[in-house]
């Protein structure tokens, strides 16, 4: 199955992302090429996932695994199969968070297997203009794998290409800004504050969104 995913990512996802967004990447050399590594991005559209899968070099893309909500992506067998085997999602049962069940276990397993795990710490798609409240799961992953760098990525404009609730994407350029990786320094709230600051600093460098 791995070769099918690889071919679809390189031959379909990559040209599609290029067509829809122009994939204007700054700092591509800062992307992790081997796991365990964590990439933390803002989230405003399904295009975010497509774009992140498209900008990794071919030799690393097989290792890239986006964390996604199990209740949304696994609710239907067809979408579920596609999500697991093509997108390569790491399912997180976000509805069970706080119930005592370890919802991050699949993400930790992926990191332990040497994958590059992509997380959207906002937990859901926002409006694309603001960075929402960040959830702490990424800090817990970083604590469990202190050797894994956490690379912040700001994606500008994906919420215009395909906003929440729309079905037809409209091609518009998106800027992807990759920041310097953060190291785990032993404190969850401090880590989350650094991650938030890093994402906002990248957002400041993005081209203006004249969208009102």
């Amino acid at each position, binding site marked *: 199955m791995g070769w099918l995913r690889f071919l679809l990512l390189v031959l379909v996802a990559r040209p599609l992302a290029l067509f829809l967004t*122009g994939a*204007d990447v*700054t700092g591509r050399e800062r992307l992790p090429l081997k796991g365990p590594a964590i990439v933390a991005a803002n989230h405003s559209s399904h295009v975010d996932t497509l774009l992140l899968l498209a900008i990794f070099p071919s030799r690393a893309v097989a290792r890239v695994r986006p964390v996604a909500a199990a209740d949304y992506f696994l609710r239907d067998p067809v979408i579920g199969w596609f999500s697991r085997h093509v997108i390569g999602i790491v399912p997180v049962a976000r509805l069970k968070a706080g119930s005592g069940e370890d919802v991050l276990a699949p993400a930790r397993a992926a990191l332990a297997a040497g994958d590059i795990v992509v997380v959207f710490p906002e937990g859901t798609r926002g409006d694309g203009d603001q960075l929402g409240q960040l959830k702490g799961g990424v800090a817990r992953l970083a604590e469990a794998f202190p050797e894994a760098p956490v690379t912040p990525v700001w994606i500008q*404009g994906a919420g*215009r290409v395909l*906003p929440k609730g*729309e079905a*037809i994407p*409209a*091609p*518009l*350029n998106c800027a992807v800004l990759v920041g310097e990786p953060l190291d785990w320094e032993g404190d969850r709230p401090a880590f989350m504050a650094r991650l938030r600051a890093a994402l906002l600093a990248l957002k400041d460098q993005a*081209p*203006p969104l*004249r*969208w*009102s």
Partner: protein
Amino acid sequence: MNIVAAVRAFFAAQPPTLLIGLAGVVALLSVAGAIATVLTALKPDRDYRELRQRIASWWVMVALLAGALLLGWQVTVLAFALVSFMALREFLSLAPIRKEDRPAILAAYLALVAAYGFIAADKYMFYLVFIPVWAFLGLPFLMAMLGQTRGFLTTAATFHWGLVTCVYNLGFAAFLMRTPDSDRLPAGAAGLVFFLLLVTEFNDVAQYVFGKLLGRHKIAPTVSPNKTWEGFLGGWLATGLLIWFAGPLFTPLAGHGLLVVAVALPLAGFAGDVTMSAVKRDIGVKDTSHAIPGHGGVLDRADSLTFTAPLYFHLLALFALGKF
């Protein structure tokens, strides 16, 4: 052996002057590359990375466009459709657009497909009126039906500006590929397009080089602070001479027709450059994207072409081409 024979036949079928012209461009780029290498070696303290990147991107652009021109009108029209698409996407991404206008954005791309469809179908009259009349009326009607009246006129103008510059004006370059051989073209229809691209880009480069070497007096300081009178005049003279001497090799122009093109085309290139700079300044960006390393976006490279392509087309139609 068959492949060698096929390649030989492919090139033998091309107009010889077109091949010589392309070889000339390759020679120019090689000289530029050699100068960049020498400069890097002579002045190790200065950073010539952007210059080298710029030249590397020129190689890629020349290779793609030369390939399209040699492969015929279908591939060339497709290549220009792609350039128009990338330019329009850059424009719509940076221009102020209202959230309600997503369907209008999609309609603008459909207008692009229709316009290039008219080129592919060789329907000149439809092409002429489609964007300036029908897209001009249809898009605002669609916007009105979407129900948002705040900033209506500004947004309608923004869409129209993007469509005319990025699609309609660039499309004239592609439409030249539909010129029939009966118009006595010295280097085929591809030669017409090649010459337009050559002189437009030569003018850009010549203005830049003269400006760097001699530039003292700013020509449009609030819009484009790097442009100088010396660069503009030097580029005008150099490009005018190039058109005067090389024009007869690639176009059926001669005499006063050739003179008008030689005088007017460099002016149009300069005007396109400055006008697009004003648009970028209004939007608040320096480059429209990073699609072409060292150059910026597609619109940064094609800005002068949005002015020169329609002018060249209409002057050719006026002085030399029977079809249009």
